[in-house]
């Protein structure tokens, strides 16, 4: 079996609006029995300055692995990462440390970034001290950050356990923005919160983006939340980007059958009962690299070509706005588009 390597596409040099470019990122992990998990199978994405790029996908699609690779928390097996025009993977030592100040992360569980034994101030100061800011200035800036996220008065002198989940997430966000980063990667920041608290955090994130000119990479399995925050959306499946483009065109008029199925599976409170595309089966094992389209085993439109030949991520004639930057990796995008419109397909269990 031969697998065509994903081509590394070089964006136009000096594209001024790209803050970070990921190029053909592959991340492999050794698995039991000498097998290899292909967590990221050639991901190419661009994060534009000031935008929110939403990354959506289900468990195991590689979205969190992508976040860790993008932040250089784990070096990808291969590929290129360009940050503000520089080769980020070449950074070492002090230059790497000063780079970390520019890209920060917020996790799903605020406890992941707040040490329960530290008072809040110390946790929020930590990234500042690590990037070489002096103690006095670090304290000032940490307090400013806590103020910016609307943490309760006197929060700095208290411990994480004294706060509710929503407040703790605010504090984790303060820690992420304290170093005045350009890029903040948000990995499911509201998934553990009640819906009324989720609204508060989403509003805060929008406000901070505006006031601090932040660029977000927003990772979530929740399509409605992704849609609410993102300018552009990338849909991942089994370590690959299957569709990417402006949020309103990807989520309203998807070209990939997986995106169509994902959208139709989301239960909406005000839509009542409706026809859904119910996918059969589960995600294939990431230890078996797919020769063709990663989604072919669950796709009701799959043909022989889909199973043997991986579709490249390209602009499609079926896109609503041609040239609008809506890319899809599918051999049959027009049919997928039709499927969501009618909500019916042969493999539907209804």
């Amino acid at each position, binding site marked *: 079996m031969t697998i065509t390597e994903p081509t590394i596409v070089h964006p136009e040099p000096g594209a001024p609006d790209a803050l970070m470019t990921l190029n053909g990122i592959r991340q492999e992990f050794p698995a039991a029995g000498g097998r290899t998990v292909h967590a990221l199978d050639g991901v190419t994405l661009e994060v534009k300055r000031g935008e929110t790029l939403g990354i959506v996908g*289900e*468990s195991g699609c590689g979205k969190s692995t992508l976040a860790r690779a993008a932040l250089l928390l784990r070096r990808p097996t291969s590929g290129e990462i360009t940050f503000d025009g520089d080769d980020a993977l070449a950074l070492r030592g002090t230059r790497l440390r000063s780079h970390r100040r520019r890209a920060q992360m917020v996790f799903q569980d605020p406890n992941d970034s707040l040490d329960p034994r530290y008072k809040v101030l110390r946790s929020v100061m930590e990234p500042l001290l690590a990037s070489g800011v002096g103690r006095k200035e670090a304290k000032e800036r940490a307090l400013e950050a806590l103020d910016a996220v609307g943490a309760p008065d006197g929060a700095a002198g208290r411990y994480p356990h004294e706060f*509710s989940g929503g407040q703790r997430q605010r504090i984790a966000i303060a820690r992420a923005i304290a170093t005045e980063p350009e890029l903040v990667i948000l990995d499911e920041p509201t998934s553990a919160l*009640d*819906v*009324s608290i*989720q*609204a*508060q955090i*989403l*509003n805060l994130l*929008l406000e901070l983006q505006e006031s601090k000119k932040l660029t977000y990479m927003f990772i979530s*399995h929740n*399509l*409605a*939340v992704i*849609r*609410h*925050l*993102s300018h552009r959306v990338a849909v991942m499946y089994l370590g690959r980007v299957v569709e990417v483009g402006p*949020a*309103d065109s990807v*989520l*309203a008029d998807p070209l990939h059958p997986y995106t169509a*199925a*994902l*959208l*139709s*599976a*989301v*239960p*909406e*409170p*005000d*839509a*009542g*009962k*409706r026809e*859904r595309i*119910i*996918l059969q*089966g*589960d*995600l294939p094992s990431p230890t078996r690299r797919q020769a063709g389209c990663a989604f072919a085993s669950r796709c009701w439109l799959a043909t022989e070509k889909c199973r043997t030949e991986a579709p490249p991520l390209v602009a499609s004639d079926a896109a609503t706005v041609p040239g609008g930057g809506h890319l899809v990796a599918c051999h049959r995008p027009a049919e997928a588009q039709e499927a969501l419109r009618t909500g019916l397909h042969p493999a539907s*269990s*209804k």
Partner: protein
Amino acid sequence: MTATMAPTAALAVEDLSISYGGGTPVVSGVDLRVAPGEILGVIGESGCGKSSIGFAVLGLLPSSARVDAERLEVGSHGMLEADERDWNQVRGRVASMVFQEPMSALNPCMRVGAQIAEVLLVHGLADKKAAHARALELLELVQVPEPALRAKQFPHQLSGGMRQRIVIAMAMAADPTLLVADEPTTALDVTVQAQILDLLDQMRRTTGTGVLLISHDLGVIAQTCDRVVVMYAGEIVEEGEPAEVLAHPSHPYTAALVASIPTTTTDPRRDLPMIAGGVRDSDRETAGCRFAARCDFATVDCATPQALREVAPDHTARCWRSEELTLTTESTA
């Protein structure tokens, strides 16, 4: 345990109150009725008491909990005075439960087919051979492909969605009258969630089992349930058909809850309406409306006790201002 004639309801609860260690009740004055084959949704945020209700109707609350009710009938069994032996007769047989995390209900060291068969053996409903044959039938009922192969596997060999199907098969083994499902799809991906909700829907139609579906996800409730009760601070604040309750709420809390959730019709990148503050313990002690402290429409009269009253046919709400308020679920405030 008193047995009456043929069950007219899978679950009938009247004036249920639950408190822990003599504290303020976490649930008070709750009436619930699940008809055979019906899915009743219970929705609310953390701490509203929805899970306590699920545990109470299966006698699973810890001994520190105090349960009071006018009526508590599971299937045709009155369980008000029930002791542990009575509950053991009912649990798994008349009523069963599916939890959020399938691994918490599965024995990691036992083949899944044997775990399903065990339910029947424990209740003396089948001999060993018949129980195993029935286990395969149940795997088919919950749409597990290749049941004979899967029955021999251990839980760790199955995906999350497949494990939840096994748990549902166990819950359905004795053909129960009532199934309590507490956040059954919260730990699953949306495409798998759609499969499991579809399965619950088909199953209750074929078996006539009534389902009490507890969830914090308004979308899940809207898609799956025939009726919904909205809980706030231990009380039911609104009840009716999901399409009606969620699209035209009559209680300010329901309206605020629906509005705070981004959906495919909300304005992207605009502020979402928020519910100010949080539930305080004192809200549960107040004689008046428990939501009043956070409600945009509260007046002095909200301090008087609020009854759950009919605001439209088959639609009740616990708010005296329901008719005069124009509640909107639009999040483009």
